C-alpha cells in the first residue's frame, strides 16, 4: 500500500480508469496544463495528452452539457466544476437534465458521467467559495452523490463513480486535499452506496461526511479518553445510494444518534436521515436525534469566525458530552 494524499488519489483514480477505458476523458477549467487549481489532476495531461485532458473556457453550462451529450452517445466523461459553489451556474444540467433524461426517455438515454467538484470550508475563502452543497444534490432524484473522507475512499469511490452508468456528483473536500493515507496499490474499486463504520462504539452513533469524519473521530477519541463515552462513528460516504442498513444497525445498537453536517442547517442530509431513523427506529431510540451543523447562514471569511461556524472537534465533543451527560 502506498501513502498518497487525497489530491493524489484523485489523479490516481482518473488515471486508473483512463488507462482501462479509452472512452473516459476529462474536461475542466485549468485542469490540464496547470493540473487544476487544487493540483488534484497534475500529471494527467502528460500521461494522456490534450485529446483526453482538456482545458475549457469559463462556461460551466457548456461543460456540463458537453459531458452530458458525450455521455449519452458513448463516452464516460469526467467534468470538473472547480468550486462546488459554481454548481449553481449550471444547476439546470444537474437538476433538470442529466438527472431526468434517463427517466423521461423511458430508459433510452443514459448519462454515465462524473462531476467532480471542490466542496467545503476551512480555507477562509468566504461565502461564495466555501459551501458544502451535497444536500442540494441529494434533493435531486436521478443522480448519485458521493463525498469521500480519505485518500483510499477517493480512489475507490471515484473509480466506481466513473464506471457507474448514472450521473454521479463527486464532492471532494478542499480542506482534505493535503491529507495523507494508505491507498491500495493496483486496480482498486470501491462500491457506491456503502457507509463505513470507521470507529466502533456502543453508547451513541455519529454520522459524518467528508471533513466532518476526521473531526468526529477526534471528538469520539477525546470523549472516550475524558469521559468514557464510547461513540461509534460512521462515514456515510455516499448520500445516494444511501446505506441505511449500516446506519440503522448502528443506531439499533447504540440507541442514540448524532449527525455532523457541514452544510447550512435547513434541509441538510442529516435532516433526511434523522427523519428516516426517527420513523423506522422510533422505539429503539433512547433520546432525541441531535444534529450538529453549520448554522443556517452564509460563511464568513475571517478565520476566527469561520472556525466557530463550521462544526469543530470541540463543538462535536461538547455537544455529545452535554447530551449524553
Amino acid at each position, binding site marked *: 500500500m502506498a501513502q498518497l494524499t487525497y489530491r493524489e488519489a484523485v489523479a490516481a483514480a482518473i488515471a486508473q480508469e483512463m488507462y482501462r477505458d479509452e472512452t473516459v476523458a476529462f474536461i475542466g477549467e485549468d485542469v490540464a496544463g496547470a493540473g487544476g487549481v487544487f493540483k488534484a489532476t497534475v500529471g494527467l495531461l502528460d500521461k494522456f495528452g490534450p485529446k483526453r485532458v482538456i482545458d475549457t473556457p469559463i462556461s460551466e453550462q*457548456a461543460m456540463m452539457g458537453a459531458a452530458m*451529450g458525450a455521455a449519452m452517445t458513448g463516452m464516460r466523461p469526467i467534468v470538473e466544476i472547480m468550486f462546488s459553489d459554481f454548481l449553481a451556474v449550471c444547476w439546470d444540467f444537474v437538476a433538470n437534465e442529466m438527472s431526468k433524461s434517463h427517466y423521461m426517455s423511458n430508459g433510452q438515454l443514459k448519462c454515465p458521467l462524473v462531476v467532480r467538484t471542490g466542496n467545503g470550508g476551512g480555507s477562509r475563502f468566504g461565502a461564495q467559495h466555501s459551501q458544502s452543497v451535497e444536500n442540494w444534490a441529494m434533493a435531486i432524484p436521478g443522480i448519485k452523490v458521493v463525498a469521500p473522507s480519505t485518500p483510499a475512499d477517493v480512489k475507490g469511490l471515484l473509480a466506481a463513480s466513473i464506471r457507474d452508468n448514472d450521473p454521479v456528483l463527486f464532492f471532494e473536500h478542499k480542506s482534505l486535499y493535503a491529507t495523507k493515507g494508505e491507498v491500495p496499490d493496483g486496480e482498486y474499486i470501491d462500491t457506491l452506496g456503502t457507509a463505513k463504520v470507521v470507529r466502533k462504539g456502543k453508547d451513541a452513533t455519529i454520522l459524518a461526511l467528508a471533513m466532518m469524519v476526521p473531526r468526529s473521530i477526534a471528538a469520539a477519541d477525546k470523549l472516550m479518553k475524558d469521559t468514557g463515552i464510547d461513540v461509534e462513528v460512521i462515514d456515510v460516504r455516499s448520500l*445516494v445510494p444511501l446505506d441505511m442498513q449500516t446506519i440503522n444497525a448502528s443506531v439499533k445498537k447504540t440507541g442514540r444518534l448524532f449527525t455532523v453536517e457541514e452544510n447550512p442547517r435547513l434541509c441538510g442530509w442529516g435532516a433526511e436521515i434523522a427523519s428516516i431513523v426517527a420513523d423506522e427506529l422510533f422505539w429503539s431510540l433512547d433520546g432525541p436525534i441531535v444534529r450538529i451543523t453549520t448554522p443556517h447562514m452564509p460563511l464568513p471569511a475571517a478565520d476566527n469566525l469561520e472556525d466557530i461556524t463550521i462544526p469543530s472537534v470541540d463543538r462535536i465533543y461538547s455537544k455529545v458530552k452535554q447530551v449524553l451527560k
Partner: protein
Amino acid sequence: MSDKNAALVNDDIAEEIRLELYRSQYLIRVSEQRAYDLFLQNLVKGTSHLSLGQEAIAAGFGVAMQKDDKSFCTYRGHAHTLARGASVRGVIGELMQRDCGLMRGKGGSMHLTDVDNGVMGSYAIIGAHLPMAVGSAWRAQYLGQDDVTTVFFGDGTTNIGAFHEALNYAVVFKLPVVFVCENNNYMEYTPIESITAVKNPAADRASAYGLESIIIDGNDADIVYRTAQDAYKKAREGNGPSLIECKTYRHSGHSRADPGSYRPKGEVEYWKENNDPIKRYKERLAEFLIDASKVKKIESDIIKEVDEATEFAKKSPMPPESILTENVYSDGGWAWRN
C-alpha cells in the same frame, strides 16, 4: 445525387430527394394537424407545441442527414422527430401519453426521444440542449466517428446564456455540430425584435464566434436542404460548426393554451396564403414536372398512415403503473437506499 437530376433545369436536387422532402413536410403537416384535432377532443393532455408552417426546416435538415447523425430538439420537436423516421404511432401515442408512445407516456409531448433514429431527446428548458449537442459532436470527434449533430432551437433561445457558451465551445474545439435557429418571429407571445439587440438574432451574432452569417428562407425546403448539405459537408470534413438562421413563421399558437391573439391582424393569414412551405413545395414539384400522381400517392399514403396511427394510439392503453418507478436509475429501478 443522380446524374439525370443534376442536369435538370439549373438545379441539382434529384426527383427522389424532392419527393422525400415533400413527403417529410406533408407527414409533419398532417401529423401536427392531427395533434391539434386531438387536443380539441381532449385526447392530448398537458401541453403541446406545433410546427405548423415550419415544416420545411425539419424536412430539409432531416432529409440531408445520414442515418447515424444525431439530432437534439426542443419541446417544439414533433416535426424533427418525425423527420428522422420515428414512427407516427410512437409520436402521436406519446402526445396522448399512451403506452404505445415513444417513451410510453413518461416523457410527454415536450420530450420526444427516439435514440434508434438518432433523436437524442427533446428538451424543454430553453437553451440546455445546445451544449448537449456540442457534447455529442465532441464524442464523434473524439471517437473518430463521422456523424454530425444538429440542434434545433427558436429565435428566443438566442438570448439565453447557454446559447453563447455552446457556440463558443463548439468553435474553440471545432466540433461537427450544426446550430439551426428557426426564427418564427416570436418568443412565445413576445415579438423577438422587441427583446433582442440585433435584427437577426442568430445570424447577426455569428461573427461573435468567428462564424459565417447565414440567413435562409426557412420555408423553402430546397434551400434548407442545400444549406444543410453544405453544413454537414463542412462538419464532416473537420471544419467545425455552422450557425444557420432560418426565417419562418408558425401558423398555430405558441402552445396548446395559446390562441395567438397577440399577433397583428392578418399576419397569420398572410403567411398561410403567401408563404406556406407545403403549398410552395407542391408548386415546385409541378414546376419541375414531377408526376402529380406520385405526389397524390404520397399524400394519400401519409393520410392513411396518420389515420392508422391515430386509431392505434386511441386503442393503446394508458401506461401501466408498473413502469412508473422504472428507469429512475440505470439499474432499471428507483431505489435510492438499501
